[in-house]
């Protein structure tokens, strides 16, 4: 049973550039959530996708956008990168209607903005 996978594992970008991160959910899951985790902090919710639509969003600017594909995989796009965007980006998947809708996390993508 494949768990949540994310790519790439590490990424280095410069200020002003754009980045796309990818996530494949756990087998059987239909919902993907994205989180940003700065060093020493807990993960902060960015947004959640279900049925190819964004249905929940945290306190992040419009520079952060996403997409969900028919196979439930998802992308996170960040435009006009800032130094403060350097963080571990986590993807989590869940199943709508599943008990507690438990979220299972991927290994994350480490983004460094120079």
């Amino acid at each position: 049973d494949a768990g949540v996978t994310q790519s790439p594992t590490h990424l280095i970008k410069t200020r002003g550039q754009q980045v796309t991160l990818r996530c494949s959910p756990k087998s059987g899951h239909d919902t993907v959530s994205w989180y940003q985790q700065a060093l020493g902090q807990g993960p902060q919710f960015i947004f959640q996708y279900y049925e190819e639509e964004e249905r929940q969003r945290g306190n992040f600017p419009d520079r952060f956008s996403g997409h969900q594909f028919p196979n439930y995989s998802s992308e996170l796009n960040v435009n006009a990168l800032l130094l403060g965007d350097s963080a571990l980006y986590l993807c989590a998947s869940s199943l709508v209607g599943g008990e507690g809708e438990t979220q299972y996390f991927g290994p994350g993508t480490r983004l460094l903005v120079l």
Partner: protein
Amino acid sequence: LAKTTQPISMDSYEGQEVNITCSHNNIATNDYITWYQQFPSQGPRFIIQGYKTKVTNEVASLFIPADRKSSTLSLPRVSLSDTAVYYCLVASSGGYQKVTFGIGTKLQVIP
């Protein structure tokens, strides 16, 4: 969204049982309580989830009193590899879920 409060850090010797308590006074009727473990630069790993009373799996137990305003994660006989950050989360099911993490509890296991 129910806010959670848990100790910032805890120390324990190897082989001891560790109990981490989380307060969630504003928990809603349809909220579940979930605990995650996170090692540095890795994604959070699901440990255990419960709604009420006691839940046990192969790695931990979760105790939830009747009023559900708190919960306690119990790790039996910890080892050095249990050194990690532990997060207590309260989240609702029912189609829409927005999980909010606090800063977690940093557990340091001492040899």
